[in-house]
């Protein structure tokens, strides 16, 4: 275990660093993108790159700290559970929100080039 600890620490810090980068990028995108459906891309970067990756990284760092004793397994395990929940739940939440926002016309679709979904709905191939 002793030999593995530095490796785990370095991998963990790299993952946390990736997360920090993704957060700033997603934050800028969230403020600069023009409408709701484009902002969904920024939200994806935030949830997966910015939250899922650093949580895994923190769990790996926690596994390598032996001064925490047995409780480091608690930290790592709960971290992995959080990460799995986030990986399943965050995209589904975005999907439900986007669907509801599109069909209720709550989100303004301002700079629009083409809306294929609207044509499909008009032709009756897809219903709400």
């Amino acid at each position, binding site marked *: 275990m002793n030999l593995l600890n530095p490796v785990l620490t370095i991998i963990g810090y790299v993952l946390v660093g990736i997360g920090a980068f993704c957060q700033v990028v997603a934050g800028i995108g969230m403020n600069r993108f023009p409408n709701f459906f484009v902002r969904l891309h920024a939200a994806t970067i935030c949830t997966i790159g910015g939250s899922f990756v650093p949580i895994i990284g923190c769990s790996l760092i926690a596994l390598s700290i032996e001064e925490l004793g047995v409780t480091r397994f*608690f930290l790592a395990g709960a971290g992995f*559970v959080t990460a799995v*929940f986030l990986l*399943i*739940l965050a995209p*589904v939440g975005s*999907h*439900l929100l986007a*669907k509801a926002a599109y069909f209720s016309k709550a989100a303004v679709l301002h700079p629009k080039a083409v809306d294929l979904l609207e044509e499909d709905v008009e032709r009756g191939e897809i219903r709400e």
Partner: protein
Amino acid sequence: MSDLYSLTPYVVLAVSALASTIAVYLAVTEKDLIKAVLYSAIQSTFYALIFYLLVVPDIVLVYIPVAVGLLPAILIIAVKKTEKYEDVGGVPRSTSIIVLLSVTVFTLIAGYLLVVSHAITFDVFPSPDARLLAKWFLATTLWWNRLFSSMSPEAVTAIVWDYRGLDTYFETSVMYLAIIGALAIARYLDIPRKEYREDVMGMSIIGKMSAKIIVPMIIIVAISIALHGHLTPGGGFQGGVTGAVTVSLLIFIFSVYFATRFFKINIAILLRIIGLAGIILSATIVAIIGFLIGQPAYIFQNQPKIIAQIGLPYEIGGNLISGTLLLFNTSEFLAVFMGFAILFLLLSIPEENVLEVIKGEVE
């Protein structure tokens, strides 16, 4: 390095407090009610971070479901059922200024008294020393002497049930009465009987599939939070509220007709009564044992005391169970879980049925 290390949490505290102030201002001044609810959800999220950095994980575990989840959820439902905009025309300007001034004066006096009563000045804030009572509680959480200790490593749960059991008992009663009040308002109402049809009802297939995967996982997490209440942060209430999210997911993602396959209102009420009976049992079990053996014992007693020498075992086979704490957490989990299940089921009754019943009652 060391300075930076100890400074960072305080910086985050200050940032989140300031951000919450902006959110509160917008929540109170916004005319669109649903936006006001969302602003108050932002404020609650930041308060959760503040509680987290003030190292009280029990409060965070209770506060996140209550203030980020349940209250906004029920407020959103209420806004959907009632009116969406607030009409503020006609409030005179002088009235609001007078109210604002008096409220400011009151709050400043209260805040100053709070600082004075803690006997600290602004030079050392927060104070490095804890009160004597806190020291005693901390020193006796898991002590070698069972006559003084509650034999639980978690000080907060030990205080909640072992030292302040009567308070917790009446708190649960207030919760019970609130649900009974809601049931009384919704008397004569029942969920209409309809067949669940997968292609028409509920949300998209992606949402349904992920809910099928996630609901058992959530229930397992909730049970683990509840049953480890005497070892780690959490407890019966926290676990029950976490479990309540599954009910709301079933109702909102599938439909209420799908959810009633698993539990109806009457069954939920029955399970809730069983939970409350469990709480009463865990309050009186030592007294009952003492009565049967013929020795003195107290109600709400857990470990043996000096003049009442009987008590529940604090460990079974090397596993710490802390006497009645495990029993209390289990029953509280059942009671709270089913309480919120009843609430969500009541809220999902269609508005047309309700209006019909009310019309019949008024006439």
